[in-house]
């Protein structure tokens, strides 16, 4: 397998965003995943979201663990720096990167094996710390790259391709994210681009730990009858609580909606999320009732999707450790080295 560069021949009619970039400018190398893999749709959604937000691609850093899902950063944002780290440990590498330069956008991509099994601890702690990032788990309920073993998000009773039943209780990453203090929590489906793209956009605008669990069927190992992560099953059981129609800058909201059906959420950076309610009573600002609602629906076999929780005034790790505004990696000698005089004073106190 070698690297395949995508031809960068731009069609003159391709639409451009505010920065003058076309969608192609946000693409990466040609994917080497299986044709039809859900992960590729998520890559496409990330490309679309970054394009629509007109983010300068080089100001995004993409980090991942190991797995088919973790390979995907090669397939989007080709002019961004990327880091394919080790299995289950993307969160710590991303945390360090974020500490070094608070000015970049951090996009962490992981799989359900990567985040719910080997990396469960790091998944938990990166959310607890409120690292400013978008953390996407491409959740297919199996280990794709190692060829189809159950992962920790496989539902109890779910059948493997070879007919073996999973008897272990599943880890619900959304429930954990809510409990651990993530300040933006969403679930979506790789087959529902209209839902996923605005969620990714909103998460990119979130100041704090944003977590998106994207159910992303593995066509090679987990798309059969008896699987609860197949395209058919997810389509049938998708229970969206709301639709994030658009996300926009500080602009006024102009479109008309029937009263009580739309909620506008203004995030820390002024971005406005227009949330169309599907479950009239679902309140995405109430962490506790969100958890209860999710548990309830999950017990009924439903897959709840949408923007499940958001704290628009969230704080991040830099706020907590009170770092200077200037990125730490730009500080020079004058700001970092106390000098010989200070050292001589210190010497004097050590005698």
């Amino acid at each position, binding site marked *: *397998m*070698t*690297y395949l560069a995508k031809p960068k021949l731009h069609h003159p009619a391709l639409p451009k965003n505010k920065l003058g970039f076309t969608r192609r400018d946000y693409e990466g*190398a040609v994917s080497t995943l299986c044709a039809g893999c859900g992960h590729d749709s998520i890559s496409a959604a990330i490309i679309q979201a970054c394009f629509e937000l007109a983010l*300068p*691609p*080089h100001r995004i*850093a993409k980090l991942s663990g190991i797995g088919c899902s973790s390979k995907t*950063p*090669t397939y989007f944002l*080709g*002019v*961004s*720096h*990327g*880091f*394919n*780290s*080790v299995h289950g*440990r993307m*969160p*710590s*590498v*991303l*945390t*360090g*990167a974020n*500490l*070094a*330069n608070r*000015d*970049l956008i951090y996009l962490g991509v992981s799989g359900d094996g990567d985040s719910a099994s080997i990396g469960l*601890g*790091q998944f*938990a*702690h990166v959310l607890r*710390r409120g690292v400013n990032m978008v953390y996407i788990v491409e959740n297919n309920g199996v280990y794709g790259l190692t060829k189809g073993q159950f992962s920790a998000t496989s539902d109890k009773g779910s059948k493997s391709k070879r007919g073996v039943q999973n008897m272990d209780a599943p880890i619900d990453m959304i429930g954990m994210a809510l409990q651990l203090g993530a300040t933006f929590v969403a679930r979506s489906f790789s087959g529902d681009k209209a839902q996923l793209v605005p969620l990714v956009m909103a998460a990119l605008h979130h100041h704090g730990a944003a977590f998106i669990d994207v159910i992303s069927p593995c066509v090679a190992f987990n798309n059969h009858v008896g699987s609860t992560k197949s395209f058919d099953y997810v389509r049938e059981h998708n229970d969206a609580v709301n639709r994030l129609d658009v996300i926009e800058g500080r602009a006024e909201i102009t479109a008309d909606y029937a009263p009580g059906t739309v909620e506008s959420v203004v995030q820390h950076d002024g971005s406005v999320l227009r949330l169309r309610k599907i479950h009239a009573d679902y309140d995405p600002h109430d962490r506790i009732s969100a958890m209860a609602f999710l548990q309830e629906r999950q017990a009924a076999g439903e897959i709840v999707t949408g923007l499940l929780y958001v704290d628009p005034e969230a704080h991040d*790790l*830099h706020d907590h*450790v*009170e*770092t*200077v*505004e200037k990125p*730490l*990696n730009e*500080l*020079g*000698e004058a*700001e*970092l*080295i*106390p*000098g*010989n005089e200070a050292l*001589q004073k*210190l*010497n004097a106190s*050590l*005698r």
Partner: protein
Amino acid sequence: MPQPIASTNDFVVKFANVNGSGSASANLLFAKSILRMGVPVATRNIFPSNIQGLPTWYEVRVSAAGHLGRRGGVDLMVAMNPQTWAQDIASIDPGGYLFYDSTKPMPPSKFRDDITVIGMPLTEICNKAYADPRQRQLFKNIIYIGALAALLGIDAAAIEQLIGEQYKGKEKLFGPNRDALHMGHDYATQRLKPISLKVARADAVGDRVFIDGNSAAALGAVYGGATVAAWYPITPSTSMAEAFQRYCRRYRVDPATRKNRYAIIQGEDELASVGIVIGAAWNGARAFTCTSGPGLSLMQEFLGLAYFAEIPAVLFDVQRAGPSTGMPTRTQQADILAAAYASHGDTKHVLLFPEDPYECFELGALAFDLADRLQTPVFVMLDLDIGMNEWLTKPFQWDDGHRLDRGKVMTAADLDAGKEFGRYLDVDGDGIPYRTYPGTHPSKGAYFTRGTSRDRYARYTEEGAAYVDNMQRLLRKFETAKKLVPAAVRTPAKQPAKAGVIYFGSTAAAMRESLAALEGQGIHLDALRLRGFPFGTEVIEFIAAHEQVFVVEQNRDAQLRTLLMTEGGIDPAKLVPVLHYDGTPITGRFITGAISSLLRAVKPLREVAS
């Protein structure tokens, strides 16, 4: 009864205390007062990690000759912990002294008849003088320091001055401490018989400072420009992270905004800690973690990634003995191989071996320049003996003209000027490629970081030839490292010598003492103190120039010797291991005994004195 030991400025005092009784600061006061009299001391804390009653010992070696290694033996035992009484009494050298709290009468069977027993009713004195139990406890310590000062001839004014410095501006605390000191001093002067151990004013301390290696290493990290630290608590490295926090609060807060020019994260484990360091270093910040053996074991996978992805991570390994339920509060140099070859695949890492707190500072700061220059993990190998004990050490110096060496980093201007960028391209022939920081340029210089499945331009490939090409370049880089790590320090024997000795790290103080002692026995050895790995040519040449070379280290398996054999292609027969690994710091006596008996046992290598 043997003759009571008589010595001026050359003896060992050992304090046996109960942890948390406030003895630590009193004992430090004792040590420092001797320093103030111009007499060098070497102090060591001994603290088992899980024995009931939490005993701690503090050993003060008074040495006008300036020997800073552990001597072994006890001339004066200050026995303040009833629970360790028996073992404390047993450890006194014949002719030595016992100082104890005689408030409660003890049967003669509890003592020895070959030592001088000095009883002072400390509890009784305290109970009379103080009503508050906490005060009774705290001042008891100061009272016995006062009494010892009187017995040993330590200038009470020197102690008073130290107390004054400690409680500067806090007259309320200073007064009672001073009074307690005099209470003890007066009692001993009036009621206790003089002893033959004495401290006499000298001028052997000079401008040296007294500090522990972990603090010095933390200071090195500050001066090395570290901005991100991630760590997980583990003895004996914890106090390094704490010291970094302390120094950052002092030196790294923006005076205008009160915001921090650093970030310290207590990770959820050592994996996360090193991961954070790798992420930060990848993104252009200087970052470090500090740990000990068990933590280093956990970091293995990440260290492989850092090696292959060429990330300038800095690790401080404060080595200790054995696993977590081994001897976590004891010292060893037993992570040498685990660090040198950490991780999967063909990996080798750069190591630095500081000998004392001064070098913890110096090499600690240097580690960051080296890591950036070489784009690879760099390990600073301390041990518990250097890390957690205060040592008399050269005063710290910093060259204000020193610029941080950020290594080969391509900037936006370089890229715009059309410089060719290949993340793993060896443009200079030294094996070190250029890197870019994320976010540098809108369209140039981005690359995807992964293990070894990539070509010179960081493009994905699993081609064998590209892998080999990369591995060869990493070897060239390691060759470059040989020239950049600090060179070994050679101490020639007074007479031409056929045998040599190699040592490193905290062994240095004991080795110096031993070299002098061996010389006294007519054994002349050229000595070489290693300061880094990979070994420079001076190391290989030193071995080649001698018939036999002793390799002194504090581990069971002669790990440095293995490294010398493997990396230097040295004939094992030539390298004679001298190994100390019971968890106590190596002593000059031990090395002298081991080398002289080895020389007697093997064929006589002794140089003929002519």
